[in-house]
């Protein structure tokens, strides 16, 4: 067999990256190869992940809040952040979720809308992984439609009282601090809630078939009394949490490609080794058609993500632009993962190979941070000027 070309090398995509971007990508690739890949199948099978240890390791290289400026954050470019997400998710969507939630949701929320004291208190600790953050927007009865959330925060003298339940909150069971969104007389506001506050309980959600190498939980807020300075002063209305989501979705658009790339690499290697009917299955035209189509989609997704990254680093991003990339790249990544699964035959359903683990993870990724349908509605509204949400 002649030499093989890796899918993302077909278009020489590295030529679009700077030395620094490649150095950062290679660093995360190495970290994932050494610290995530050897263990992740076991984490997934056991449904238990050493989130704190991982956060410390990620923090040590500067992965947590890497695209933010100041407060111990690395201040890297959006493209570098995207490449990091891609490498992380090539390991597992759970590792990328940790970095997304910590950096783009919890830290970004405090960084963009917090008081100076809140930033000083939390960001440096979160950047090194000494403090773990989570982000509570979704509720049991309000997912795609957070505007109708039930969690309430009421004035109580100088302080606040929070009541409600947040559901499907990544890292809630291990977090030190939550950025919680609640309805007030003054619209939706954000609060920085230490998880050891009286009245806060976090329950692990068990029986997941997806993102098993990531902790997910429910946060019960039972008459939680918070001081006045727990309020994020600059966050007013739903557009504040939505802006955090835009940050995270950007990273997910890159991340999903990592999972897809890992599946495709695995499928190609497998197809070249596995023999049926007296020859490697890579030699069958049907297999090659699958591989070629997947490689094409993967590269298109990369170009889309990179385009977004360059926009983010120059003029900034509009939410609907991020919707395009999140919708496309997660949808295509999931299709690639499932298609790769077929190439591995029975081995495709085993945890010995990463493929079905990635496919299962991507089911969550398809749903969180705005379902595909919601992103279609965002794009549809942009195209037509008509809102179809309700």
């Amino acid at each position, binding site marked *: 067999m002649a030499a093989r070309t890796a899918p993302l090398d077909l278009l020489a995509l590295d030529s679009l990256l700077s030395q620094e971007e490649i150095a*950062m990508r290679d660093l995360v690739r190495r970290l994932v190869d050494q610290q995530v890949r050897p263990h992740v199948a076991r984490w997934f099978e056991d449904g238990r992940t050493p989130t704190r240890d991982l956060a410390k390791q990620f923090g040590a*290289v500067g992965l947590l809040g890497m695209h933010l400026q100041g407060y111990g954050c*690395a201040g890297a470019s959006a493209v570098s952040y995207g490449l990091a997400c891609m490498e992380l998710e090539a390991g597992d969507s759970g590792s990328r979720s940790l970095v997304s939630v910590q950096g783009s949701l919890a830290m970004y929320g405090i960084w963009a809308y917090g008081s100076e004291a809140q930033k000083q208190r939390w960001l440096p600790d979160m950047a090194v992984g000494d403090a773990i953050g989570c982000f509570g927007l979704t509720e049991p009865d309000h997912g795609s439609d957070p505007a109708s959330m039930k969690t309430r925060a009421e004035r109580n003298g100088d302080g606040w009282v929070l009541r409600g339940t947040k559901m499907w909150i990544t890292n809630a069971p291990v977090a030190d601090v939550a950025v919680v969104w609640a309805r007030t007389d003054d619209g939706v506001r954000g609060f920085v809630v230490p998880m050891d506050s009286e009245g806060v309980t976090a329950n692990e959600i068990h029986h997941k078939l997806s993102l098993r190498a990531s902790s997910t939980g429910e946060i019960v807020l039972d008459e939680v009394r918070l001081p006045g300075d727990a309020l994020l002063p600059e966050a007013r209305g739903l557009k504040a949490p939505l802006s955090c989501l835009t940050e995270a979705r950007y990273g997910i658009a890159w991340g999903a490609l990592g999972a897809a790339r890992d599946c495709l690499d695995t499928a190609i290697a497998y197809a070249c080794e596995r023999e049926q009917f007296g020859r490697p299955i890579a030699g069958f035209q049907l297999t090659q058609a699958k591989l070629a189509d997947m490689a094409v989609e993967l590269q298109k997704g990369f170009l889309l993500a990179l385009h977004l990254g360059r926009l983010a680093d120059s003029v900034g991003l509009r939410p609907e632009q991020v919707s395009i990339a999140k919708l496309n790249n997660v949808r295509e990544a999931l299709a690639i993962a499932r298609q790769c699964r077929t190439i591995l035959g029975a081995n495709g359903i085993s945890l010995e190979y990463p493929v079905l683990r990635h496919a299962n993870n991507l089911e969550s990724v398809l749903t969180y941070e705005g379902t595909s349908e919601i992103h279609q509605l965002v794009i549809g509204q942009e195209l037509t000027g008509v809102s179809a949400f309700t």
Partner: protein
Amino acid sequence: MKIVVLVKQVPDSGAERNLRSDDSTVDRDSANNVINEMDEYAIEEALKLREAHGGEVTILTMGPERAAESIRKALSMGPDKAVHVLDDALHGSCALATSKVLAAALKTLEPDLVIAGAESTDARGQVLPHMLAERLGAAALTGARKLTVDGATLTIERQTEEGYEVVTASTPAVVSVWDTINEPRYPSFKGIMEAKKKPVQTLSLGDLGIDAGEVGFGGASTAVVEHARRPPRQGGTRVNDDGEGGVKLVEFLVSEKFV
């Protein structure tokens, strides 16, 4: 403390490596060129010493233009600056000539301590640290698996095949380290961004007062006469257990120094 770490760019030892057919030097064009693995441990040791005792860490590399990539990578782990000895005439230099050049560069830097990897994965000679110590009139503390610094006194545990020896000397010294000495840190994103701004001084043979004839193929004390690829692996030895199988296995392990 002024520490200089020697860093060599080598072809990735995990991939296929070749010698050039025209001049028998290492083929760098077809290779993925990386920092010599053992040198990362040397960098880590230097950074730990800087953290504990203060001072400055300088990377010193002799190598072609593209070795600059490895210098940036090394700097992204945390050293302060670098010196790159770069001269076309150096191509084909033997170990003796290399030590002459590096010693001349080290004299301009006046370090208290030079740390190097015990060997490079391409040549695996293990001679350079000794040659440098000799040329600099410094102590040679080679093959360390542990290094402690107490003022000007350096103590190493020298790793041997059977165990270790404790060797003590005072600065200035050349210490070479094995990969048992520490666990090198990852670079950080900040480190990668800062590495771009760190000073890298380029020195030519002229800057070091060395004549081109003393180095390169012309000045080489050794020459590669012939080279061939290692023959493919043979079938290995098979031990049939006719009651003595265990003994034979242990004898083999002892002969290979595994036990």
